[in-house]
């Protein structure tokens, strides 16, 4: 039965429909695999009863012939999504004990389609981090290890638990969210596929907010076909999110032909950075050669404001976070500090937030408070928003030249060791998102596809950036890249 956990979403779907396997059998296989994998710390709230109940319902639905693509397929849900009656803490101490009375739109859509929730997945606190080391639950661990030693590596972040769970076959697929690279970077670090759709494709309702103008949910899956299947189930207009798009959601899977002849793929010169390992450059060149061999036209392009994306992000994201996280005041939900005699409401706020928020979250909330404060609003916040306009224009200009997609590395390195960055200043950690953050600032879709291994045997990924709302075309290019790269490596089981 163990091989059931190794299936893709598409394979499991086809087996369920053919009657070769039941959702209950699939679900039981995963529940066992999850219990054997506590060393990875991927699942932080397991929901076996809910899983089996939904699996039974899915089997009944399949038997009646009413089975959407996701019906009966066991998945994991990032802790950032509110799930009714199930702890939803955004990996923060300040939401300890919080059990929402409602379900996020995205997880509701997956549930309505018959997907089976196995549990909640680890992440960086409030999705702020690139290594899953800011989680109140402790680190999630990458199932991959370097060939020559057993050092524990980060699965990336913030969707680190989602990435580890998919890579270690602890679910068929998982939800992630991406504010600056939080789907694509962990996907690259664990040898899986992850897509952040166009801003507005997925409803943000019921997803704990970090930076509302940048946050988007997306699927993290074993391959591109699975990403297409799950993305379709997650997308769609939602009246409860005023930025949710009314555009129709196409059948993304049907668009996977693998034919990219004549497509124009842009290679941005600004993404060639000093200090990036030669292996990453080679990976990128290999990707270029693969797409060329598949019939695409390779075009050198320029995105001149790329350098300013990270600094702009580290104004805009903390500013929005400081506003969004103001709601955690110890009054309506979660943690409230024990107060001393004579403490008033201000002391309650200050002590509650000092106890409940971790260090990185506190720092970002305070940086955000500073850049929004009187006298600095124009110099920092408004300037960053102007730079953001220029970054978006860079992309609009190359798309106007006929570019269909842009190929870049997904990350500047392979997965690093847990604790390795603890002495570095925060900027070193922020550089993880150097290739991904532009995409959030411009609201574009971006997908990370595993295409190779480094000299230590760790997975590396390439990123494809698409035109707004053209996730189907983007996924098709990713599919062609996946076919050419033929990445099949899996981590050896040590846990």
């Amino acid at each position, binding site marked *: 039965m163990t091989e059931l956990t190794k299936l893709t979403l598409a394979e499991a779907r086809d087996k369920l429909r053919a009657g070769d396997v039941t959702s209950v059998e699939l679900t039981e296989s995963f529940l066992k695999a999850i219990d054997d994998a506590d060393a990875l710390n991927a699942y932080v709230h397991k929901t076996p009863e809910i899983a089996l109940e939904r699996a039974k319902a899915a089997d009944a639905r399949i038997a009646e012939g009413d089975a959407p693509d996701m019906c009966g397929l066991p998945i994991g849900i990032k802790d950032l999504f509110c799930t009714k009656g199930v702890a939803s803490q955004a990996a923060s101490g300040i939401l300890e*004990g*919080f*059990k*929402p*009375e409602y379900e996020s739109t995205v997880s509701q859509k997956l549930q309505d389609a018959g997907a089976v929730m196995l549990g909640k997945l680890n992440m960086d606190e409030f999705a702020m981090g690139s290594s899953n080391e800011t989680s109140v639950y402790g680190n999630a661990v990458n199932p991959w290890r370097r060939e020559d030693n057993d050092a524990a590596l980060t699965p990336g972040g913030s969707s680190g638990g989602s990435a580890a769970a998919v890579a270690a076959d602890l679910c068929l697929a998982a939800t992630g969210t991406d504010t600056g690279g939080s789907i694509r970077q962990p996907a690259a670090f664990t040898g899986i596929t992850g897509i952040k759709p*166009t*801003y*507005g494709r997925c409803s943000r309702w019921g997803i704990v907010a970090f930076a509302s*103008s940048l946050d988007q949910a997306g699927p993290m899956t074993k391959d591109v076909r699975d990403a297409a299947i799950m993305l379709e189930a997650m997308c769609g207009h939602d*009246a409860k999110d*005023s*930025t949710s*798009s009314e555009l129709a959601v196409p059948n993304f899977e049907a668009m996977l032909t693998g034919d990219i002849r004549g497509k124009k793929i842009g290679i941005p010169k600004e993404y060639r950075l000093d200090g990036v390992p030669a292996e990453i450059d080679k990976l990128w060149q290999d990707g270029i050669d693969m797409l060329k061999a598949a019939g695409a036209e390779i075009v050198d392009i320029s995105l001149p*404001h790329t350098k*300013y994306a*990270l*600094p702009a992000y*580290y*104004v805009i994201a903390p500013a929005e976070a400081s506003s969004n996280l*103001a709601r955690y*005041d110890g*009054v*309506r*939900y*979660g*943690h*409230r500090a024990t107060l001393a005699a004579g*403490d*008033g*409401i*201000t002391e*309650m*706020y*200050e*002590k509650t*937030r*000092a106890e409940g928020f971790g260090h990185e979250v*506190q*720092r970002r*909330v*305070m*940086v955000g*408070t*500073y*850049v929004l*404060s009187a006298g600095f609003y124009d110099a*920092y916040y408004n*300037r*960053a*928003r*102007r*730079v*953001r*306009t*220029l970054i*978006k224009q860079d992309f609009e200009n190359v798309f106007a030249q006929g570019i269909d997609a842009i190929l870049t590395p997904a990350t500047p390195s392979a997965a690093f060791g847990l604790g390795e960055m603890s002495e570095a*200043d*925060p*900027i070193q950690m922020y550089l993880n998102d150097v290739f991904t953050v532009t995409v959030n*600032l411009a609201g574009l879709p971006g997908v990370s596809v595993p295409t190779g291994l480094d000299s230590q045997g760790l997975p590396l990924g390439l990123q494809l950036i698409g035109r707004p709302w053209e996730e189907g075309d983007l996924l098709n290019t990713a599919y062609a890249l996946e076919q050419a790269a033929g990445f099949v490596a899996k981590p050896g089981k040590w846990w």
Partner: protein
Amino acid sequence: MSIDESTAAKVAKLARIKVEEKDLPALAQEFNAVLGFIEQLNEVDVEGVEPMVSVTPMRLKRREDVISDGDQQEKILKNAPDAREGFFAVPKVVE
């Protein structure tokens, strides 16, 4: 632009996060590292560029001004650290 300890204390106060006196120097130093990084934005010519409001061109939707939800007092109070007699309870706000 350099942040000193008193500015760090002021920001912590604005953010309603209690920071111990002894932690202020390290906090100020971290702010300076982040703000030093952000300073690069001053190199960009933003003359005549509009600050971005919405990343996708869309008009903010309006809904009918009707009651669509409500009457969920119990559910709303369910996760409160302290709720009494149908209200959120907090320490005394006024003397």
